[in-house]
């Protein structure tokens, strides 16, 4: 039985509890929040009696095998270090760390401790993303991707999140080097990082503020971002984050022999094999194939609904389960460390380009603490 603890009992912690409760052979043994009342409200609702306000005490008393950290990113480095020092594996909510340097230091420390880490890029593990990965590995693309496109929409209509962020310059999101982008884009960037080489030759980022956000105030917050990336082998990638393009969370991978398009919102994966058709068949066969692909997705979604697999947090449950299995069975963690670091590097570069000095000097610096090695 894997003993699990959660640090940070805010909004996202509910999702973690629900996802963990779907997994067999694990149990949430402790909740911790610097506001004890927050830990208790979560504990009351899910019948978890062991609640703490001090991380050290929680680690000492509950001795969890794995800790989920769902606090604002500024605290990730120090809390994760604390958990690793106490001998617990760590699941960190996104973004993994404030900078790539911190991300690397954390991973090095985890390795030194003989412990595992992962990051909450749960949208990498939705049903259509799992299928896309399987097909890409099987060779559907016909080689290394030539080009990638990742779109991530964010709806400003949800004012329960955006309102406090825009109205309060001291809000933790506003204190991040990349502000609003920093807290959201890692999902979309991580999708690209999976298919890019470690060595990038070019990252060009441009950002601006939409008229809608301008109308809501907070002049220095940007919400429209476009990024062009090229890796050493020549694969290019485009990333688009937008509050104005609605309902478009997609990844397109273009290979020499085929294209895969995953749509997170509709839970669809469209396969498209590069083929030419004679004469007028070009106008008839590919549209028919596309229609059949959409019908196939409809059939799969209905089947998944009947099988009770189409729940909202499937990706999170899948990622957590794979992480726990890697702890139990000793395999590699579900998200390779190189992807975590590459994602952080791309984000560092984006924020430096669009926010300049502000991004290169984080407002709340989080330097690596001296690592105290614990037993391996």
């Amino acid at each position, binding site marked *: 039985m894997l003993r699990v603890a959660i640090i940070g*009992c*805010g*909004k996202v*912690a*509910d999702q973690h509890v*629900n996802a963990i409760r*779907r997994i067999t052979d694990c149990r949430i043994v402790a909740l911790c929040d610097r*506001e004890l*009342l*927050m830990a208790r*409200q*979560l504990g009351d*609702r899910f019948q978890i009696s062991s609640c703490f306000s001090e991380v050290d005490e929680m680690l000492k008393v509950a001795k969890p095998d794995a800790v989920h950290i769902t606090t604002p990113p500024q605290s990730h480095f120090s809390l994760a270090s604390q958990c690793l020092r106490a001998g617990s594996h760590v699941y960190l909510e996104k973004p993994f760390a404030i900078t790539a340097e911190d991300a690397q230091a954390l991973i090095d420390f985890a390795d030194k401790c003989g412990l595992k880490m992962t990051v909450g890029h749960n949208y990498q593990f939705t049903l259509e993303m799992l299928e896309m990965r399987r097909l890409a590995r099987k060779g559907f693309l016909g080689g290394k991707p030539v080009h990638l496109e990742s779109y991530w929409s964010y709806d400003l209509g949800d004012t*329960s999140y955006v*309102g*406090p962020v*825009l*109205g*309060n*310059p001291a809000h933790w999101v506003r204190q991040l080097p990349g502000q609003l982008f920093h807290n959201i884009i890692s999902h979309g960037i991580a999708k690209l990082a999976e298919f890019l080489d470690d060595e990038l030759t070019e990252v060009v980022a441009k950002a601006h503020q939409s008229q809608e956000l301008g109308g809501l*105030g907070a002049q220095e917050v940007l919400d429209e971002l476009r990024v062009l990336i090229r890796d050493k082998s020549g694969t290019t990638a485009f990333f688009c984050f937008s509050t104005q393009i609605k309902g478009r969370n997609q990844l397109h991978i273009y290979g020499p022999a085929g294209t895969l398009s995953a749509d997170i919102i509709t839970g669809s994966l469209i396969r498209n094999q590069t083929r030419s058709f004679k004469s007028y068949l070009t106008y008839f066969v590919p549209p028919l194939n596309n229609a059949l692909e959409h019908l196939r997705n409809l059939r799969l979604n209905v089947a998944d*609904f009947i099988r*009770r697999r*189409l*729940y*909202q947090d499937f990706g999170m449950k899948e990622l957590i389960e794979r992480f726990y299995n890697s702890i139990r069975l000793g395999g590699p963690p579900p998200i390779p460390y190189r992807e975590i670091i590459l994602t952080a590097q791309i984000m560092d570069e984006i924020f430096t380009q669009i926010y300049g000095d502000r991004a290169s000097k984080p407002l709340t610096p989080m330097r690596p603490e001296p690592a105290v090695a614990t037993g391996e």
Partner: protein
Amino acid sequence: MNLAYIASPGDRILVTGSNGFIGAKVVEILLEYGFSKLHCFVRPSSQLGRLEKALDQFDAGENVELIIGDLLSRDDCEKATEGVSIIYHLAAGFDKSFAGAFMNSALATRNLLDAFLKFGKPKRFVNISSFAVYSNLRLKRGALLDETCPLEEEPQERFDAYGFGKLKQEELVREYGRNNGLPHVIVRPGAVFGAGKRELSGRIGVDTFGIFIHLGRNNILPLTFVDNCAEAIVLAGLKPGVDGETFNVVDNELLTSRQFLEAYRKAAKGFRSISIPYPLAYGICLLWEKYSKWSKGQLPPAFNRRRCAAEWKGNRYSNRNLHEKLGWEPRVPMAQAMASYLSQFGTNGTV
């Protein structure tokens, strides 16, 4: 000083949520009563239109102190409660998540209560709650729902984050009353309506599925016009001898859901709805709830028996406490209140 009140015009009064639908009206009525040493607490992100409009009506409005802050910050709470005698706590969190609702309701209230005890001169804490805290699951249809009725024990099952936050907020206030001797009053407004709030109460129905489904039918709605509600709140903070009391706020003349919707339909042109009887609504909610459990949350339990009962079962309501203990009388009769509400749609509807 009006001897009928526990505070004099020289006392400082704090109003949280002072730019809200009810809060701005509370400020307006306090100024009308002659209380001008007001601290109006607003969030940094607030658009201040409603509050400015209220302040502009009174010369004393110029003396009102605007405090911009976040109740989740203890420093901001300290700043707001300095020397304050009465707090009208109207700030509410409408977060969809349980944690968010708890944070904005209970945690914010805890900070405010601590600061009030430490930096204020507490005469009374008026906690604005909601009818959402009640459970009528075991009440018969048409039974009287008053301040003695049971509170919701399973807000998680009811899938009502707002109600959960309000329940926890009330628990905290009562705890501070017991343990710290804090004089307090709890006010639970019913369905507050008025110009400036266009949407229909959930007790009338839902528009989740693209068309408005009328579920309230012949149920009496616990309506209170915003001016009437605000005056009840103001009196709850001022009248002597009501510490520890709870007040439901509903107007004298109440309409049925059907009457309200008909008036709304005339004013809001192009509005269409279908009507579903309660037994059918209950059956659908039961099936939805069962499926949600069986599918382990593939469909969230947005419709369930507890919610169905709370919103659409139908009860009678009493404002006897308001009349007897606060001497409250609605300042705006229902016909005038409805005309004011409907005027925002461009035509004057009649009931």
